[in-house]
């Protein structure tokens, strides 16, 4: 089975009458493999929502090629949309209808039995409020309704643009479980989010975008490893002497508040051995592995919102 999403050289320039053109995507590439939760990260205004909208046929691309579920889009969109569930940024619904009615109308449009409406209401935990008007929903409840509408089709590909927006901690955890369930059922999830801890926990792979271009992509572990500079945190009784010893032995040492940061070492045992040879006893030695947040900030270093 091929990739679920393949994007090559996607371009998009928004043209507005008043403010002139604004380039949102500048040759963006992305590949999402099946059966994964794929994280889609990038600073504000980097083009995530634009990418997702283009993929879904809401926005007309300015160039590039896209394939979703093996079909070229937007050409074959009609064939693939029944298999894609999507929540686009800050979803909204007609305020005077109840959540249940909103979903039922969609189900009728899509030829889905109304039984499924009750199922998805259960999944997102909206059953108790299903007959309330959407206008009276909280932000998080609207978000849940949006997810419910995306799940209605029992999609093979679930696209979620900031689904955690407005969700409470329990909601975020439910969302995580939900994504796991979806993937366990054989589907693929593309998740755009700013909650990097969440992404790191749940995602198998990520794509990071900045200024409309891909800056890195791959399995989360690989992305993290790519930024691993082999740093260790070393705590000793006499940091000054230890620093001198290690530096003499060929390591790069940077003193920090109450410890030393040692770089350019492949084997941590070497540090222990070297220091022990000089009667310096290591109290603590931990590798500094980058987390997604630091990688993200490193890769998207420039100011997020630039002119």
């Amino acid at each position, binding site marked *: 089975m091929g990739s679920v999403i393949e994007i090559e050289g996607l371009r998009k320039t928004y043209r507005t009458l008043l403010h002139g053109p604004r380039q949102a995507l500048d040759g963006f590439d992305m590949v999402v493999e099946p059966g994964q939760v794929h994280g889609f990260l990038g600073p504000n205004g980097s083009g995530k929502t634009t990418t997702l909208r283009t993929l879904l046929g809401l926005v007309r691309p300015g160039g590039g090629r896209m394939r979703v579920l093996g079909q070229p889009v937007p050409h074959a969109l009609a064939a693939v949309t029944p298999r894609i569930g999507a929540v686009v940024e800050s979803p909204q619904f007609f305020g005077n209808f109840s959540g249940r009615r909103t979903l039922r109308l*969609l189900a009728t449009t899509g030829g889905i039995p109304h039984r499924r409406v009750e199922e998805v209401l259960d999944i997102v935990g909206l059953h108790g409020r299903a007959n309330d008007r959407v206008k009276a929903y909280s932000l998080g409840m609207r978000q849940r309704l949006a997810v419910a509408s995306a799940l209605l089709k029992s999609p093979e590909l679930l696209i979620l643009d900031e689904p955690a927006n407005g969700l409470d901690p329990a909601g975020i955890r439910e969302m995580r479980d939900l994504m796991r369930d979806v993937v366990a059922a054989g589907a693929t999830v593309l998740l755009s989010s700013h909650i990097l801890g969440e992404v790191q926990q749940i995602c198998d792979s990520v794509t990071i975008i900045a200024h409309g271009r891909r800056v890195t992509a791959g399995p989360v572990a690989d992305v993290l490893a790519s930024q691993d500079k082999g740093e260790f945190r070393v705590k000793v009784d006499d940091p000054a002497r230890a620093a001198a010893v290690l530096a003499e032995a060929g390591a790069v040492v940077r003193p920090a508040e109450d410890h030393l940061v040692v770089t350019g070492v492949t084997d941590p045992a070497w540090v222990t051995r070297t220091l022990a040879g000089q009667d310096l006893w290591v109290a603590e030695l931990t590798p500094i592995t980058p987390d997604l947040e630091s990688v993200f900030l490193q890769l998207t270093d420039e100011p997020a919102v630039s002119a």
Partner: protein
Amino acid sequence: MKLIRAELVRLFARRFTRIALVGVLLLLAGIATVIWITNHKPTPADRLSAHIAAEQALTERNAAYQQCVDAQSRTPSPGATDSGAKQFPPGFDCHQITDYPSTDADFLPASFRLAAAGPDLFRALGALLALFGFAVGASFIGAEWSSGGILTLLLWRPNRTPVWLGKLGSLLLGVLGVGVVYSVLWYATLWVLADNRGSSALTAGALRSLALVDVRAITLTLVAATVGYAVSALGRNTATALGAAVAWVVIFEVGTRIILGLMNAARPERWLLSSYVQAWLTNGARFFDESKCHNGPDPCVGVWWRISAQQSALVGVTLLVVVTAVSLYSFRRRDVT
């Protein structure tokens, strides 16, 4: 088909539609109430007193006629005070007095005759339904745009032309249904009114022409709904269509009328959409052109001219084609953000 079914449900589930339906109903009820109050079926006593009054009027008129003839035949003598000569100046055509003899009917209390009043009342229904169609059509897609409903719908139905047409189709089906139901209700109401407050007698021909008026009224309603829908879709909110309607009234009906009046333009009505609406509802309308009146020393030589129903249809179809084409094109092309 599934789309049309869902959209029909949506149309009638909307509060705006329901309020508008009730609003039209209340206005119709108001008209019916006024008819009920102001009309009466003549009683035998009414008929008798009307007959007496008519007889009396006839006698008075004959007397006046005689006076007139006398006054005309006499040559006016200077100094003579002759009341007849004052009342009827020389050269007065005495037959004018007897030209329109009054009948008993002139002295009866107002009564509601379906055959006579029906067409106008069905035109009133048409005007109300057209307003209803326009507003409901505009809000049907306008509110969906501004609430994000269209975006969600496009995630289910990415082909935009069928979405636009399907939604319009459901709207027109719904409005047609309302038009038919309200026409039947209106006919029943008018019949009951006429039966109690006048005469409900209707010849087959009169009934047929009433039905034709109704067909025209419903056609107008469908056109209004389509235009409201298309303009609202173009602007992506309801306010655009309502704004366009207000702008049309202010600029094209009132403003243009004033300017054309100042310019003393010939046949100003031909530039006003309302004339075509009127001509459509009345199966052709006559207008008096008095622009020539002010031009020379000669007395006014105004002319009557007509807008035919066919011309109205042509104007309507043109408007419809242009508005829907632009709206659909924009719906297909523009980004949904």
